[in-house]
């Protein structure tokens, strides 16, 4: 602990112990605990206590107060627990009876929920050693914890469960326990197991749920003997729970069974896990059975019969839909056999609300099925594709169910189902056999794109799905035909949609499409002849800044295509588009009031610069110089960072040319190398890159200064390596810039006293040497524009807050 903190701590403890003082901010105590947690990780708890006796005084005094603040009481319980996590500190506190008075005080567990929560968390932190376990058992705290496990507060009950699970999984090895502790602990485990059994048989839903949660928490990490003991207690009641109250308990039972399936219990003949799971699949309502089935399908070593059953459960609703729309009854359905009665599914589908939730569940889990290797093989029959397509058709009214008609009424225009179905269709694109469905998939996705009623979030998903199908099937000529004939005309409409969400999603889609397919010979001509580029230019002046930014990014990406395919274009118009783009982007950077488009412009230019060999934009240097100028003076620090990144690319490119001027020469001509480096630096100077870097170095936003510093350090390394050979006498600009810069920041300690020497000098090498960049970098790493966020600052804040009397704590902005 820092000396200053140690000095402040007693006063802070005194404030906390004073019931008349109130803590200023509800986060202060949490942050104090964070600090102590960090400290106990570094310093033994005992020495913390010995060096700071105020801590012991605080803990012992607060709970003796007649009406302590619940948050302070909770705090000291947690603090005591943290400190007592080390055995020595535990003994120290226990010798003074502090722990007994605090944790043995049952009244604490009968007051405020915050106090109850703190009490449990304290014990949880403390329980790191056998003496702590002994303490819990000696004071018969298990009964209290078990009571809290049924607490009305979610937070308390959940914390109590964590503590109980920790107790159940406590000993990792039997021999590690001292004396009779192991047998005492075993008795305690039995008590908890009995409690679990009682709860499960109680018929009180909250008690049952909590105990099922507890067993689920413990099963994964406990010893086999505990595992068996718990399972014995759970097995019997579980079956009756399934009979009595399957609806309310299904979720918890499912979690329990799936956790148990990942333990050795799964393979034990007595555990009946497979039997119960199988029973649940048949007896639960489909909406409850589907998540269980999905969990079963992800299990390793799952028996084949159970797996098949689970698969049938997931797909049954989809099978119904398939049958509903199938015009040719002789076609094979999705499933040959069902787990639950058809009438049950039909009943669910006959009511709108249950129909929608059932289909959403089935669709989302069916989509996941496609990713499970053991399952996906069996899904290639095509029926799953057909059923998802059928759902999408019903939702948009392009398919009419043969019978019953209500399905159509339920689904038409249902956005929720549409979202799930489109997602599932997208994830099916990578399935083997998907090639056969490309035509149908494109048709339905296009229908959605065309339909003016399609909701914007669905449209976004539709475009994502199209991209997935394109990516997996770009070798099919049909894809390119569809792109040209169908997709681009619709996309053009969507780029002019009244909803900004749709325009933006369409632009993002176009960017991705261009990125993925720019290497394919088929794509560029289609894009260039589509007329979309003109629209993109229009969208640069969209009213919504998100859209303008996306248009900038899209144009940035399409530039590679317009450039590389000039032969496919009327060359005149092609060049003019590019020139126009570059100047338009510079205008946006200079004038746009929003950060997103400006950020996008600098990013695009940085990207263009990186790949400039692929581009032939006229007057590129000029535009890039403007971007650098505007970008580095932007109000948005992220724009400045991107500008510096752009400068970095410039520097690397320029210097790499000079340094690797003739990599294969046996004897390099020193002279020619010198000239090249000098020339390169001159070039960078002409672009005012040093000005940008040095201004950035003193920027008030730390990330900008950090970036500039990093670039300057690498620049310095390159230049100083060649110091002897470098002739920079002609470059008289550097001191001017620096002196300007330093006079502006004359108060900055780092530059103190360097002004005069700089003016006298005239050498970039010297400037870079004078600037202690490494120290600056270190300082920037530790510092920021923010106030000190140290424990000392926190302690000061707590003390200061008690001195102000104004009641402003509860106000909010």
């Amino acid at each position, binding site marked *: 602990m820092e000396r200053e903190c140690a000095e402040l701590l007693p006063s802070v403890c005194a404030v906390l112990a004073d019931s008349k003082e109130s803590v*200023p901010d*509800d986060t202060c105590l949490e942050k104090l605990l964070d600090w102590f947690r960090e400290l106990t990780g570094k310093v033994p708890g005992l020495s913390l206590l010995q060096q700071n006796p105020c801590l012991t005084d605080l803990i012992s005094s607060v709970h003796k107060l007649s009406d302590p603040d619940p948050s302070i009481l909770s705090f000291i319980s947690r603090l005591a627990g943290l400190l007592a996590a080390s055995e020595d500190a535990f003994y120290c506190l226990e010798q003074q009876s502090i722990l007994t008075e605090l944790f043995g005080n049952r009244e604490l567990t009968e007051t405020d929920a915050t106090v109850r929560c703190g009490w449990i968390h304290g014990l949880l932190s403390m329980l790191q050693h056998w003496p702590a376990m002994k303490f819990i058992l000696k004071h018969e705290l298990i009964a209290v914890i078990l009571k809290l496990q049924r607490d009305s507060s979610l937070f308390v009950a959940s914390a109590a469960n964590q503590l109980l699970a920790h107790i159940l999984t406590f000993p990792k090895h039997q021999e590690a326990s001292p004396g009779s502790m192991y047998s005492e602990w075993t008795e305690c485990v039995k008590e908890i197991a009995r409690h679990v059994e009682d709860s499960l048989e109680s018929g009180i839903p909250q008690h049952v749920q909590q105990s099922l949660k507890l067993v689920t928490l413990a099963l994964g990490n406990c010893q086999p003997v505990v595992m068996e003991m718990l399972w014995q207690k759970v097995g019997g009641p579980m079956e009756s729970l399934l009979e009595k109250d399957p609806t309310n308990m299904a979720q918890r039972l499912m979690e329990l069974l799936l956790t148990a399936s990942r333990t050795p219990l799964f393979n034990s003949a007595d555990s009946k896990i497979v039997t119960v799971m199988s029973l649940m699949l048949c007896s639960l309502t489909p909406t409850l059975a589907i998540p269980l089935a999905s969990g079963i399908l992800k299990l390793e070593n799952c028996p084949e019969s159970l797996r098949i059953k689970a698969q049938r459960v997931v797909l049954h609703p989809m099978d119904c839909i398939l049958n509903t729309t199938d015009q040719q009854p002789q076609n094979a359905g999705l499933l040959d056999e069902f787990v639950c009665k058809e009438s049950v599914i039909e009943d669910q589908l006959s009511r709108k609300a249950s129909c929608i939730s059932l289909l959403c569940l089935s669709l989302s889990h069916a989509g996941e099925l496609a990713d499970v290797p053991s399952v996906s093989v069996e899904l290639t029959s095509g029926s799953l594709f057909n059923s998802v397509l059928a759902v999408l058709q019903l939702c948009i009214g392009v398919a009419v169910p043969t019978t019953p008609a209500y399905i159509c009424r339920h689904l038409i225009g249902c*956005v*929720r189902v549409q979202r799930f179905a489109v997602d599932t269709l997208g994830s099916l694109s990578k399935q083997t056999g998907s090639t056969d469905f490309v035509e149908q998939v494109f048709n339905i996705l296009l229908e959605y794109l065309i339909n003016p009623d399609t909701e914007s979030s669905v449209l976004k998903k539709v475009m994502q799905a199209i991209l997935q199908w394109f990516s997996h099937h770009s070798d099919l000529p049909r894809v390119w035909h569809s792109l040209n004939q169908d997709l681009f005309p619709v996309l053009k409409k969507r780029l002019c949609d009244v909803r900004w969400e749709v325009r933006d999603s369409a632009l993002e889609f176009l960017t991705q499409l261009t990125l993925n397919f720019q290497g394919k010979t088929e794509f560029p001509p289609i894009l260039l002849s589509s007329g979309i580029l003109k629209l993109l230019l229009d969208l640069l002046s969209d009213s919504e800044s998100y859209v303008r930014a996306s248009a900038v990014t899209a144009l940035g990406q399409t530039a590679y295509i317009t450039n590389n395919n000039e032969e496919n274009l009327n060359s005149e118009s092609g060049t003019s588009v590019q020139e126009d783009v570059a100047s338009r982007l510079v205008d946006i950077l200079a004038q746009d009031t929003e950060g997103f488009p400006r950020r996008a412009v600098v990013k695009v230019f940085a990207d263009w610069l990186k790949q400039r060999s692929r581009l032939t934009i006229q007057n590129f240097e000029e535009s890039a110089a403007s971007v650098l100028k505007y970008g580095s003076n932007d109000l948005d620090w992220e724009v400045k960072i991107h500008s510096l990144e752009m400068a970095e690319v410039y520097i690397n490119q320029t210097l790499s040319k000079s340094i690797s001027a003739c990599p294969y020469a046996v004897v390099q001509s020193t002279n020619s190398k010198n000239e090249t480096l000098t020339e390169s630096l001159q070039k960078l100077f002409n672009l005012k890159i040093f000005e940008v870097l040095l201004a950035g170095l003193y920027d008030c936003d730390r990330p900008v200064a950090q970036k500039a510093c990093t670039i300057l350090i690498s620049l310095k390394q390159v230049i100083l390596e060649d110091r002897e050979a470098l002739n920079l006498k002609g470059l008289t600009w550097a001191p001017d810039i620096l002196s300007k810069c330093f006079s502006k920041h004359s108060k900055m300690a780092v530059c103190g006293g360097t002004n005069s020497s700089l003016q006298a000098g005239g050498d970039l090498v010297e400037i870079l040497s004078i600037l202690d960049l490494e120290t600056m970098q270190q300082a920037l790493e530790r510092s920021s*524009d*923010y106030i000190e966020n140290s424990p000392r600052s926190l302690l000061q804040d707590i003390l200061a807050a008690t001195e102000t009397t104004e009641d402003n704590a*509860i106000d909010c*902005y």
Partner: protein
Amino acid sequence: MPQIQVTPLGAGQDVGRSCILVSIGGKNVMLDCGMHMGYNDDRRFPDFSYITQNSRLTEFLDCVIISHFHLDHCGALPYMSEMVGFDGPIYMTHPTKAICPILLEDYRKITVDKKGETNFFTSQMIKDCMKKVVAVNLHQTVQVDDELEIKAYYAGHVLGAAMFQIKVGLESVVYTGDYNMTPDRHLGAAWIDKCRPDILISESTYATTIRDSKRCRERDFLKKVHETVERGGKVLIPVFALGRAQELCILLETFWDRMNLKAPIYFSTGLTEKANHYYKLFITWTNQKIRKTFVQRNMFEFKHIKAFDRSYADNPGPMVVFATPGMLHAGQSLHIFKKWAGNEKNMVIMPGYCVQGTVGHKILSGQKKLEMEGRQTLEVKMQVEYMSFSAHADAKGIMQLIRMAEPRSVLLVHGEAKKMEFLKQKIEQEFNINCFMPANGETATTVTNPNVPVDIALSLLKREAALGPLPDPKKPRTMHGTLIMKDNSLRLVTPEQALKELGLSEHQLRFTCRVQIQNPQSEQDTLNTIYSHLKSVLKEHSIQHLPDGTVMVESILIKVSAAAEEPSTKTLLVSWSYQDEELGGYLCTLLRKGLPQSTG
């Protein structure tokens, strides 16, 4: 019994962040999804694992509703929708949808610049999240699905703030978000109709406060600014981009005009235009005065307030600057503060609350030496003033809203436990309704007693209306008919129509009773006596002597038989149908008393 459950994950007995889960009629709705700005790790966001362990929020939640654009109400939204994963609909008003991303982006920029910040959302995530938002209009009933509907009401507080009514069938909840019951310079007062929700979830920031006059606070504010400017000092007012800032701008603009002051007033660059843009766009959300004068003059186009450039901070002479962010924790406001802090002529006015760890918090608690991370120590000589201009309803306003909405119960959130306790008692006393104040993680449950709507056939209504006195809304009357539950609806129809619709045939249910009396007369004479007796007693009923030897009163049949061995004991067989049950019972009692002596 149907019930509504409310569980706060945030704002339960605190003002940190709002996130309240409501389960109503089998639907789960999240009200607000706020961020706690006092933390720099995951603790700033609500812990969604309490809602669902498997992160399938989309399957669990039917929708999310955001009351207004303040980050303690919407700041966790991108985290929830993009990082935890929620694909369902998010509802907010049009102004909130427009302004929310600006504030989220502003905060993101500040946060990612900070050291030690973990797990924060990106610009792209904010955008993707906003694409899931469905904007709603005031008083527009939005159908989330077939059963769940929501409706927004004006809440004052900030531009676009709304209260939401959530309704499933006949059960309903109203969530106020933050609201203000008194109009201010640019916004109106909150208003709701008498919607009688089962629960009114109300904020209670000023649960025990009757706030001092706003005029006093304004006067105080203007006086302080004026004095500082007069002595040549500079005034810094750290604000959040949109919200209270506009209120203070209008205040200063009017004052400068009236006093003919010359010192420049500046507003952070970019934000003035942005604020102007949104206030023009959503002019209908401002108060009446602004709307009225809008044609002649846009109140948000200020004469005296100019855009600020960083270099102006070094200009000599007095000036007033509104700069963001409001807690002096980063960016322009902190930059200016550092420049001006050393001069005792200057002043900083903090118009809102600051979390621990910010410069704002430090100076408000009176600290004079601030240590900046790794850099210099800053000495604060300038004057520091705190003036709350946040627009929340005070105790009086909360009571007023309860009176307006007439809820069946109230649930308090967004306030301190002790103060809530006081208000809770007051509400329970005055309105004689339950008031809950669950802590975070605790669930408040209200049993509802929903009315079931029943359609009634017009023919039946007419028939029933014709039977008795004219319909009167003040005197409820019992209607008779057959209730049919078919196709998820209930209808009251005539029995005949019910039989027809259901394809059933009618069964007659008759009650029979034997009454023994002593009468020496013959069977026929006894019957005659009965006939004339009943004729004289039951004058209003139709009584017939049928040729088959029975007497019939309405549908009731009476037969007489005598046992051979005891001829003076007569057994009367009385039989009646269900419709005449009352009369049947009466007749039996009457006959048991015996017959009058024969006159013939």
